[in-house]
């Protein structure tokens, strides 16, 4: 069964212009003890706060701004579903800017994503992310190296190898989703100057050398994305670079998460 609950604490976003991001409640809230009223902060908590800060800055620049992040808290775990009141009360407790809560089972959560026009799905579960990608929803996998970076800016890292992959046959829907999401990020960036942007966009390429990176930079530029930081690894190890850059999430252009 699928149910959607609006968060009346939060002003609803304009459906035609907002960028809908769904995050699983499992990622946002840590486990709390049974007697506790409120969940603890989970690994995606800083990520959510960073998304909110972007909205705040957008509204500061233009109080009538419609291009905002619309955050949906998705619960796919049937066990957690029974905790739905606690999920809602925890959200309110922390003042999280969640527009609505969606509760569904593991079988029909993707339907829920599609119905809610979700443009980016964030989960700590590889299977969930993969299922969503296959149905054309841009997804990113959250883990301890990402998500939980307590930075002032929202840090997004594009995985360039996927960005420049040639399309074999018709463009997969997840790729379309990636293109339109990146275009919207680019649109948000243009609302700010370099020195006051709440968004920081990075690019990392692993395969190939400098020319692959140049291709990825050109591709992102053609989508209207302004890349702030670029890392061309030429097969050097990822880990150290990620631990310094500390993105909140990685976008691999609809080709699933990082392999290796």
């Amino acid at each position: 069964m699928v149910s959607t609950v609006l968060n009346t604490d939060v002003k609803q976003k304009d459906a035609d212009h907002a960028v809908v991001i769904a995050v699983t409640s499992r990622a946002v809230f840590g486990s709390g003890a049974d007697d506790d009223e409120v969940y603890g902060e989970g690994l995606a908590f800083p990520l959510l706060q960073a998304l909110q800060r972007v909205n705040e800055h957008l509204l500061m620049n233009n109080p009538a701004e419609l291009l905002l992040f619309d955050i949906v808290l998705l619960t796919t775990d049937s066990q957690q579903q029974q905790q739905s009141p606690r999920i809602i009360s925890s959200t309110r407790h922390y003042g999280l800017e969640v527009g609505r809560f969606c509760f569904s089972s593991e079988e029909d959560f993707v339907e829920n994503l599609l119905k809610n026009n979700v443009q980016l799905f964030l989960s700590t579960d590889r299977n969930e992310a993969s299922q969503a990608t296959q149905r054309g929803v841009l997804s990113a996998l959250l883990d301890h190296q990402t998500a939980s970076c307590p930075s002032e800016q929202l840090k997004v890292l594009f995985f360039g190898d996927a960005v420049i992959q040639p399309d074999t046959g018709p463009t997969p829907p997840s790729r379309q989703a990636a293109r339109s999401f990146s275009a919207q990020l680019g649109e948000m960036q243009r609302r700010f100057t370099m020195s006051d942007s709440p968004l920081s966009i990075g690019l990392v390429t692993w395969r190939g050398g400098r020319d692959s990176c140049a291709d990825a930079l050109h591709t992102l530029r053609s989508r209207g994305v302004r890349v702030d930081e670029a890392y061309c690894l030429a097969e050097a190890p990822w880990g150290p670079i990620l631990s310094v850059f500390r993105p909140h999430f990685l976008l691999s252009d609809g080709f699933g998460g990082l392999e290796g």
Partner: protein
Amino acid sequence: MTKGCIQSHDGPCSSSSLYHSLSCLSLFLQPKPENAVTIAVSSRVLFRTEREQKVFEQKGVEEYLRYQIEHENEPFAPGPAFPFVKALETVNARLRDLYPQSEELFDIVLVTYNHAHVGIRLINTINHHNLFIERFCMTGGSSPIGYLKAWQTNLYLSADADKVREALAEGIAAATMFMSEKITEVSEYQLRVAFDGDAVLFSDESERIFKAHGLDKFFEHERENEDTLLDHGPLKGFLEVLGKLQKKFYAKGQRLDCPIRTYLVTARSAASSGIRALKTLRAWGLEIDEALFLAGAPKGPMLEKIRPHIFFDDQMFHVEGAAEMGTIAAHVPYGIAQNHNPKQNASVGK
């Protein structure tokens, strides 16, 4: 340089995996950072970017980036670190001839806190000059130090003294380079690296004595401690890795025409204070090809004869003096000499 295909460790190039197909098409495979000698250079020392710097200083970052994008297809001219990088590539070519499977090579990485907007212009420039740089970090303003450490950098060259000091504080060999109007020609076949002794290869302990108590006390101290090793300085590790690569040439009978040559250019004197320096190097197992003890004489003329691709000194007085005569000199902002005005305080015999 020709593009080529090398055998991967797993066997001949085959189309059975994407990895092998890519390695056949690509340039020489990049060595893993832990196996290579990683040299990180910033964009301002690899290339000449004075005009762009001026735009940045006078008109701010947005205008600077707009300017860079407008001129994206105009390659930058070579900067002070350019001849050094070219010489490193020459050594790599010789190493690949002798040891085709080895990853013990120089890995040149561009590490800049420039914004990624400048990335395309930098890549175009690297292509224009035919440089073998496939790895880079453009940090968009944040400190590059984390990345230097992540890539186990053996030497970092930058135009920014603060960044260099930060790197030194993290135990990474580093030096500041400056654009000089006069540059004499350097060898295309042999990499020549010259080092000052105190506060570069060795610690600044003896310099401290000299600064605090004068020349006589310095000599006395060196004599008394002749058999005590000097402590190591920030560039000792770099000399060490150069030595390891040199040995690879010697092992193949190429001692006489080894494409790496190292020099010690010190104001110490051979008969007295120099002995301690030599003993220390020997105890460290480090060979230096030529040791020049100047006993306080100016370094400029000697360096002009050597024509190193880079000369490391901790005193700006010597760096400027060398540059006036066309030597590519780099400043190592380490030790007691940094507290003194460079032009005033010549080290009159160390």
